[in-house]
């Protein structure tokens, strides 16, 4: 099947490794992966700032670039949730586009849930000698119901011991522009998250959304901790040797 990778703006800028990990995992499942050139962002910053017109314009751009593929896959629950849940809302009163957007929404998936729920992946062949914990990013968890899929695949990683994070479902305080609009509140939230992570005593924390990961890694590093932060796709693709943890020196 032809799969279009929605890279996401944060992965494109900060951490291409996640994008290549996604490509590797998808190709291993027999997908033909393409990366439509006309993609930038899903439009969520405009949408959540109340700028509906811009959000719609960007959504149309995504629609046109992606609607001819069998599936659209993003290594982010937040961006996938935007396309899957919020695009149909944006065009609900626009009959000309609404049907096309709904078709696109139905075929758009977050990476790990796509691997498990659509490709039927049961296990990965990756090795990572680590004790790690996992943070459930909000959009993936509550908009797309992603909970078991990453845990199931991580359980098959050779050498990895996964321990549940107390408060794993509590927001890390990223929230897109929230984290710079209300830095004091965001700081309190990410400090609590960092404390919960450090309290596990484990070496690494994983999640499926780069926004949360940048926030959590940035806080852990500001606190001077040694916990390493990675996107779940890097571990599942066995690509942990190809890039240092997020925010670590190269």
């Amino acid at each position, binding site marked *: 099947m032809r799969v279009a990778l929605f*890279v996401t703006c944060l*992965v*494109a*800028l*900060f*951490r*291409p490794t996640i*994008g*290549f990990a996604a*490509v*590797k995992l998808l*190709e291993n499942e027999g997908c033909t992966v393409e*990366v439509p*050139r006309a*993609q*930038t*962002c899903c*439009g969520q*910053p405009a*949408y*959540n*700032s*109340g*700028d*509906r017109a*811009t959000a719609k*314009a960007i959504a149309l*751009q995504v629609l046109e670039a992606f609607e001819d593929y069998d599936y659209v896959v993003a290594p982010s629950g937040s961006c996938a949730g935007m396309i899957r849940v919020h695009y149909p809302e944006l065009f609900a009163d626009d009959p000309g586009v609404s049907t096309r957007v709904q078709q696109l929404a139905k075929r758009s998936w977050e990476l790990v849930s796509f691997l498990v729920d659509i490709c039927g992946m049961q296990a990965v062949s990756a090795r990572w000698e680590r004790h790690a914990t996992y943070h459930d990013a*909000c*959009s993936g968890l*509550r*908009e797309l119901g992603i909970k078991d899929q990453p845990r199931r695949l991580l359980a098959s990683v050779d050498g990895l011991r996964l321990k549940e994070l107390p408060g794993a*479902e*509590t*927001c890390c305080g990223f*929230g*897109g522009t*929230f*984290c*710079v*609009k*209300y*830095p*004091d*509140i*965001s*700081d309190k*939230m990410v400090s609590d998250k960092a404390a919960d992570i450090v309290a596990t005593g484990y070496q690494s924390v994983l999640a499926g959304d780069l926004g949360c990961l*940048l*926030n959590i*890694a*940035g806080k852990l*590093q*500001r606190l001077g901790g040694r916990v390493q932060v990675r996107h779940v796709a890097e571990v599942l693709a066995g690509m942990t040797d190809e*890039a240092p943890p*997020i*925010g*670590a*020196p*190269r």
Partner: protein
Amino acid sequence: MLATSRTFEANARAGLANPTLQRALGMMRSGFPERRRVAVERLPEFEALRDIGKSIKDHTLEHLDFYLELFEENVLSSGGQVHWARTPEEARAAVLQICRSVDAKIVTKGKSMIAEEVGLNEYLEQNGIAPVETDLGEYIIQLRHEPPSHLIAPAIHLMKEQVADTFRAEHRSLDPGRSLVEARQLCDEARAVLRPRFLTADVGITGANFLVAETGSSIIVTNEGNGDLTQTLPRVHIVMTSLEKLVPTLEDATTLLRLLARSATGQEFSSYTTVSTGPRRPGDLDGPEQYHVVLLDNGRSALLGGEFQDMLRCIRCAACMNHCPVYAAVGGHAYGWVYSGPMGAVLTPSLLGLAEAGHLPNASTFCGQCESVCPVKIPLPKMMRHWRERQFAEKLNPPVYRSGLSLWAWAARRPALYHALVELASRVLGWLGSGRGRFRTLPLANGWTAVRDLPAPEGRSFQSLWAERQKSGVKH
């Protein structure tokens, strides 16, 4: 009550810097959500009940005019009276007029958010009538002249040591050497002080959790029994309530009651659930001589048929704030008015306007916890976003934020240019950050780096690396 929602940021910082508040919030954060979780787990049909609860409320709101008239008819036929109040002023005036008609000096009060909304206590005091709060939490904050910081636990921002200090300062006739260490001792003291007030009050004012159209009844739930003493002992019972508390039937009310306590405190049912229908009838052993319902609109009917109608389903259980990480960080007073947390972030702008309350719907990460626990499935994040849309349309956001957003949007609609910019930023930031792997400060990124490091980009953008891979024909 004077709103301070405008200064939300400063209020929030004060809350974050208050160690006692932080301790109290820490206890709340571990308490309410866990109790709710256990209660929900024990009721397999809880999810189905949420759908039924939602549809009961939706149905009522779709036919609100019909049920309001039916309610009034049934209140009248059971011997009570309904006072329609469009505004807080009209609601206060109605209460004062009833109090004056019986020459009331002391008024006991059960918990009522509508009384808070219209600022009833101050108004009664100004008019020579002494209101006495009888809910323990409300009593404490009344003594301290503070607004409630939570829907169902108005004094949740306090620790018991602060309550002990307040009691010592206010209950001056009691032995100064008495022990007030245990919560039990504080409860006993409040009970002893309040008991004679119950017996001497001329009027009792309660809120209502539900109004039942088919019987003209009001329903309250409490855990302290104070509501029952408030509404049955005085000669006059006034129910301070608002339009959207209405449900068609007693059976509907019981469905919502099954959701309410579980969502609020994790109880199956509150300790006391009391249905009041009209005044005392001949042959009744107790009950008030007069039964009045003051029914407040205050902008609610204007929400009908619009994008905020769903908010009128709210049954004030507080599950949204109990699960909100922003509320847990800053506490209820930061929101600056009667309602706090996610439900306040949606409701307050509709009651006070965006100019006053514009911060509230913005101070959310849209994490979705609130919606996921709401017993009547109110799409709270979606409605906060609607407020942001109005704000944007009315150009109420800070200019620097608007121009930043439009600059970004301009680039995001030009993929070729955008990719070039991303590649440039990846290279420059990647090179600058290659030593440490992160930035402690970065021009224009102070909102981020003030509180956390910024991980550095890897050095090349995905799109340019991908283009190279396509050219070379090498697969990963």
